[in-house]
């Protein structure tokens, strides 16, 4: 047992850090990736009931989901006037619509007559007006009341009182966000450092290449927390990388990890079980072999080079050609690394070329024990190219494997591994005699930050 009572949160994995790696890369990293921002946030256990209690989940719907900004869809879902997207979160449903060429608006998906949902299931659609399927009341795309059949019977109804109920809506990075709180603060306040940090990586100039939506057998927080640290890589993925990842918490709403791909710290594995990857450490050629899943030109590292520099250069060349974009000046870290930003409460945006995802985790309906995981691969748009029509999501149920989505390729088994522990964790959260989960001070600080911000929304005072 480590009885070290040194200042909590100060300790780091032994060996080279992410900053050390970035400093020796073949090209300089964008400034935001050189910034580090961490402070010790506490080391108290997080109560298991937050993941298992239906009452806590109900409070989340009332106090969190009804009050936070959340991404509903991409702007590319709403290219033409009349294009709309239905976004469901727990008991709530929102219609996002392009109501005019330069205007996206959002409304509660509920008829002003007898509250029927106007549009059915979640996803994209198109219409010239909104019409309730029950009695045929209709509204314009701007939500204004248009027609009431048997108008003579409703002298007490007018556009002022019976237009669709407006929901706050804004955009960033090609994502459309909604907030159900009528008194919501602006999205810009909430995004914090994200716009600045993504200046070098404009997400609005990317298109959805693949969207996979899977139901996961655990609470939405447990699901997303499986993706907030790279500490699990050794055991879950049988991978040498991740033990020296960098974690940053930029405030209440935004956090990040940078997990180097294409090199690792053997010293960081010092107290991991066995001698794997430590004695002897992997050679550069062996590391390149691991990276070959990306599709590289080289199968050997030339003298004077590293696996990381070779892989980054091979990918620059190959992806510049296949994507029609100039990647010649892109840094090694942006080419290769898993650079994952989290936006409270449930959204992830990656600033990487080879690891180009966006994630969203949310409750599956009202069920505390299952979650919906939306997984998007975002591909750069070629210069001057406009967004094509986005693909429909491939939907997977709990028992289905990511390998059923052929387009995922080498990523599929990785996500099966990531999600393979979740049913066990949800079961354990319910049966543990220890009432709370324990978090690492550094590697799992992002998870703690989310819970602390949640406490503010939920008006929970732990002190």
């Amino acid at each position, binding site marked *: 047992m480590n009885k070290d009572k040194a200042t909590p949160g100060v300790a780091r994995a032994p060996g080279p850090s992410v900053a050390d790696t970035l400093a020796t890369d073949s090209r300089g990293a964008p400034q935001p990736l050189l910034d580090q921002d961490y402070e010790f946030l506490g080391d108290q256990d997080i109560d298991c009931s937050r993941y298992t209690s239906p009452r806590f989940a109900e409070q989340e719907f009332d106090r969190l989901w009804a009050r936070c900004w959340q991404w509903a869809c991409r702007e590319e879902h709403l290219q*033409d006037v*009349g*294009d*709309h997207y239905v976004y469901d979160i727990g008991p709530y449903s929102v219609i996002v619509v392009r109501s005019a060429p330069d205007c996206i608006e959002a409304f509660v998906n509920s008829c002003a007559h007898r509250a029927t949902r106007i*549009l*059915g*299931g979640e996803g*994209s*659609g*198109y*219409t*010239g*007006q*909104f*019409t309730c*399927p029950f009695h045929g009341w209709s509204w314009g795309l701007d939500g204004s009341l248009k027609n009431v059949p048997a108008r003579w019977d409703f002298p007490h109804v007018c556009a002022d009182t019976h237009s669709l109920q407006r929901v706050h809506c804004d955009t960033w990075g090609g994502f459309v966000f909604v907030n159900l709180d009528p008194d919501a603060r602006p999205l810009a306040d909430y995004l914090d450092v994200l716009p600045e940090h993504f200046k070098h990586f404009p997400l609005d100039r990317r298109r959805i290449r693949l969207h996979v939506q899977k139901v996961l057998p655990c609470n939405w927080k447990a699901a997303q927390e499986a993706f907030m640290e790279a500490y699990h890589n050794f055991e879950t993925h049988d991978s040498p990388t991740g033990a020296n990842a960098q974690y940053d918490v930029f405030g209440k709403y935004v956090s990040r990890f940078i997990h180097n791909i294409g090199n690792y710290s053997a010293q960081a594995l010092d107290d991991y079980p066995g001698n794997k990857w430590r004695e002897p450490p992997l050679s550069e050629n062996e590391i390149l072999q691991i990276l070959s899943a990306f599709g590289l030109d080289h199968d050997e590292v030339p003298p004077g080079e590293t696996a990381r520099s070779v892989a980054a250069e091979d990918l620059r060349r190959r992806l510049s050609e296949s994507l029609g974009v100039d990647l010649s000046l892109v840094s090694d870290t942006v080419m290769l690394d898993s650079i994952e930003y989290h936006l409270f409460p449930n959204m992830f945006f990656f600033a990487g070329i080879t690891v180009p995802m966006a994630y969203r985790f949310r409750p599956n309906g009202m069920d505390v024990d299952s979650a919906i995981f939306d997984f998007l691969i975002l591909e750069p748009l070629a210069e001057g190219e406009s967004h094509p*029509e986005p*693909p*429909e999501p491939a939907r997977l149920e709990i028992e289905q494997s990511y390998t059923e989505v052929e387009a995922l390729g080498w990523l599929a088994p990785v996500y099966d591994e990531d999600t393979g522990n979740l049913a066990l964790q949800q079961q354990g959260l319910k049966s543990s005699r220890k009432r709370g989960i324990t978090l690492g001070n550094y590697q799992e600080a992002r998870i703690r930050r989310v819970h602390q911000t949640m406490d503010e929304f939920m008006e929970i005072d732990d002190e």
Partner: protein
Amino acid sequence: MSNREFTRVAEAEQLQQGKTMRVELEGREVLLCRTAEGVFAVDNLCTHGAARLCEGKLKGHRILCPMHGAAFDVRDGSALTRPAVRALASHAVRIEGADILIAFSD
């Protein structure tokens, strides 16, 4: 099936991928749709409110009605979302050289 008569209704190059085209055959309106999977033909009038689907939008393999937003699968005409519950008639399509031919299924 063998006695269905195919009739030329359009030139294939007039119908781009992701687009639709309204044609008329024997006084009946038909919607041609070209998706990534090929060309399909369904009735042009929504089975719910009889709105013209050619004024709606094709998204993937779904045609969306401009009036109420009902969705139909153009591959077989099936109604995917309310308020439509009845399928569109779906018609056989054949591409011959530069031409699109259809044959009514009913």
